[in-house]
């Protein structure tokens, strides 16, 4: 379980806090979606939840982050990495810059953990299979498209097999097929007990993936609840967050006197 209790955070060199009194509990196997307008504090919340802020980037934090009951404060970054990982939006910065092939790039994390070669290879192969990257394993990581690089970046995190995964717009550069692929991989990951916090503008992805949605604005949690409840909440649109197609369609039908549940039934039928 990953827990933030009463967390407020201020970047180094700034006088104002960008997160205010955040309480967030991420249970094992749970997937929480994080939405909000630009500059709402989503990326900062991801950095704080990963333990990198303030441990690596400085700044000051009030409140606490605990990982499986262990306070993150004072943990060395490599100890943090064994428990929680974070994926950034820009796949170019996710790349190590020292691996000659995609396989080596994905294997870097397990290798750094000091695992035996056989286990490193096994974890790497599993991550590659999960994101169907077999065709890329011999490619130079610097010569990938944005979408391919993003998938490789996510695979690099999955190969670490952490208990908690934080993803900051993991599908920003992916096409619909790539987005679905990532969604499937993350869902499968959650079934192994890994908890996920995903900051994402693509609410359609979160709608089918998350059990709970948190909306933040101005560094504060303004909506927090089951996915359908938050996405059906009219206040979401006022934040500048576009609800998923399902919710918009259901609302449009409701406005015309039709049953919104028709959409749910149709979607359930399409899924089966």
């Amino acid at each position, binding site marked *: 379980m990953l827990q933030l209790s009463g967390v407020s955070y201020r970047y180094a060199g700034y006088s104002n806090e960008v997160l205010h009194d955040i309480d967030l509990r991420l249970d094992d196997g749970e997937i929480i979606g994080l939405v909000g307008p630009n500059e709402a504090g989503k990326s900062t919340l991801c950095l704080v939840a990963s333990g990198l802020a303030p441990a690596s980037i400085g700044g000051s934090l009030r409140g606490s982050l605990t990982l499986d009951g262990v306070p993150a404060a004072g943990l060395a970054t490599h100890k943090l*990495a064994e428990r929680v990982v974070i994926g950034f939006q820009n796949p170019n*910065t996710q790349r190590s810059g020292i691996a000659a092939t995609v396989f080596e790039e994905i294997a870097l994390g397990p290798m*750094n953990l000091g695992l035996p*070669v056989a286990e490193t290879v096994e974890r790497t192969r599993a991550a590659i299979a999960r994101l169907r990257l077999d065709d890329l394993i011999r490619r130079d990581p610097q010569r990938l498209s944005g979408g391919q690089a993003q998938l490789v970046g996510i695979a690099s995190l999955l190969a670490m097999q952490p208990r908690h995964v934080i993803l900051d717009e993991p599908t920003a550069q992916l096409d619909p097929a790539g987005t679905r692929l990532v969604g499937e991989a993350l869902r499968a990951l959650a079934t192994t007990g890994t908890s996920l916090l995903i900051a994402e503008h693509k609410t359609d992805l979160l709608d089918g993936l998350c059990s709970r949605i948190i909306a933040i604005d101005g560094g504060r949690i303004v909506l927090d609840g089951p996915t359908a409840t938050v996405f059906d909440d009219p206040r979401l649109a006022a934040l500048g967050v576009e609800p998923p197609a399902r919710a918009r369609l259901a609302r449009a039908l409701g406005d015309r006197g039709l049953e919104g549940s028709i959409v749910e039934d149709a979607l359930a039928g399409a899924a089966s």
Partner: protein
Amino acid sequence: MIAGVAGRLVRISALLTLPIAISVILVSVFTRAGTHVLFTIGPFDATTEGVDFAGQTLVRLFAISTSIGLFGLTTEPRSFVLDLERRGLSPRFAFVALATLEAVPAMVERANIIASAQRARGLDTEGSVRARLRGLLPLAGPVVLSSLTEVEERSLALEVRAFGKPGRRELLWRMPDSTAQLAVRAILVLALIAAIGGRITNTFPRLP
């Protein structure tokens, strides 16, 4: 390998040696004191001793540049650094060495992208020398600044992947090392010891 490398090696070594060789020849031939004057140009005498000294210095310079050139032509830098790490080099040092090598093509690629973007906005990057110089600042600024801003996120991404974990890593990759290569290395080490021993005991004639 020898056929493929020998020609390039001689060319590279000659090019590496040439700038220093010219000054060595001029300085040694015309300023070295000697008793046998070959010819005179103004106040300078070219002496046999000067020619002899210049010749010996050039041989040494060529030997040094050939060894550096041979290393560069036959050794893939990435393999070299990773093999050093396998033999005990700190992973941090290996990363710095490799990242430096990888940074150059990445910077070139970034510069090309930014140059294209600036050209699309009307920046003249292909006109006169003056126009190109004027266009340098709008190009260099974004290249340097974007590289710097990426550094922090890149270092965070490495930390997330446990790069800071102390101790050795088990590398996936092993450099092929045949018995013949081992034997050649042993012979070279013995030859080096013999050369040093010979020099100390004056078995070989000492160069002036």
